[in-house]
């Protein structure tokens, strides 16, 4: 379908926090074309002022996520072939975040919530001590492993309807990060972290829609991580009372 046409009908959202709308562009169809290629073509050839973010182009840095035909995607590794519908693409900034300009969303609240969820590693040893030995077969290490490849692209955050309904909710990425650290034997900040994820904006808000797991480009499962947090936080609540 999209493979045998030579021009894509692309609509790109242009505007800023005050408002905006879609602008249509005709973009030449290329082989193995990614959505990021399309956006870059528009900026190079049609709209030099178009604002968007990218850095590595190989799915490492997590900076190029946008809404593509209604769903959040990492655009550098999303092939046009997979997401275009009858040669049409509609590209917008990430949902659940304010727009700065065009396709660039303000990521500050997203990263603030990482910190709020206890996403900072709290070391218990110095560089002068020997490296900690963490046997890979322990359940804690396996649980951390399952969530550790997060690239902070915010696809899960944009896909999360709980964030959409409860804007202060910490969200799947920050809670997934908290879960990996909660399973890190070297970390000394567990009490504070458990308190952070147990609060009003924490793991208890998750409705397990699993849109985050559905769309995570690295195949992580934040819903499973949050379920882990619910168990730990719930057990701590039972032991500590109210």
């Amino acid at each position, binding site marked *: 379908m999209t493979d045998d046409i030579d021009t894509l009908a692309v609509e790109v959202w242009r505007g800023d926090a005050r408002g905006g709308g879609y602008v249509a562009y005709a973009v030449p169809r290329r082989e193995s074309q990614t959505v990021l290629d399309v956006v870059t073509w528009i900026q190079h050839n049609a709209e030099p002022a178009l604002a968007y973010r990218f850095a590595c182009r190989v799915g490492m840095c997590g900076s190029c996520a946008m809404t593509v035909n209604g769903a959040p995607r990492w655009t550098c590794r999303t092939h046009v072939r997979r997401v275009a519908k009858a040669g049409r693409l509609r590209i917008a900034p990430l949902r659940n975040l304010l727009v700065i300009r065009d396709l660039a969303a303000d990521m500050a609240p997203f990263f603030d919530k990482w910190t709020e969820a206890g996403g900072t590693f709290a070391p218990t040893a110095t560089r002068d001590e020997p490296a900690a030995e963490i046997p890979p077969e322990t359940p804690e290490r396996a649980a951390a492993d399952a969530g550790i490849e997060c690239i902070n692209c915010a696809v899960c955050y944009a896909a999360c309807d709980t964030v959409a309904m409860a804007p202060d*909710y910490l969200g799947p990425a920050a809670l997934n990060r908290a879960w990996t650290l909660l399973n890190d034997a070297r970390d000394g900040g567990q009490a504070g972290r458990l308190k952070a994820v147990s609060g*009003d*904006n*924490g793991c*208890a*808000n998750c409705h397990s829609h699993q849109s985050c797991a559905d769309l995570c480009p690295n195949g992580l499962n934040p819903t499973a991580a949050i379920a882990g947090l619910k168990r730990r*936080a*719930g057990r701590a609540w039972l032991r500590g009372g*109210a």
Partner: protein
Amino acid sequence: MTDIRLYMLQRISAMILAPLIVGHIVTMIVAVQDGLSAAEILGRTQGSLWWGLFYGLFVAAVSVHAAIGLRTVAFEWLKLKGRALDMLGWIVFAGLLALGGRAVAAVVL
């Protein structure tokens, strides 16, 4: 929004409710077969300690469960916040507990 305390009360009340609902559904299916009448219902329940405990626990758990659930819906869909939100939760809890307690008393005593 929901902290771990409300979350756990919601889940614990759910765990209490699950077997009670199964019992309630079985009772309904058995009782409805020959048609329902006040005499038939009261004949089963009146003076029964077990039905009193069964439905008393049911009412208590469902009051907690529905109050927390409606509170969440009111926050997420109606944007109710702060004290108004907590008040709504308490009103639903107290209202269901009162009405449900009265209903149990009516069929058991």
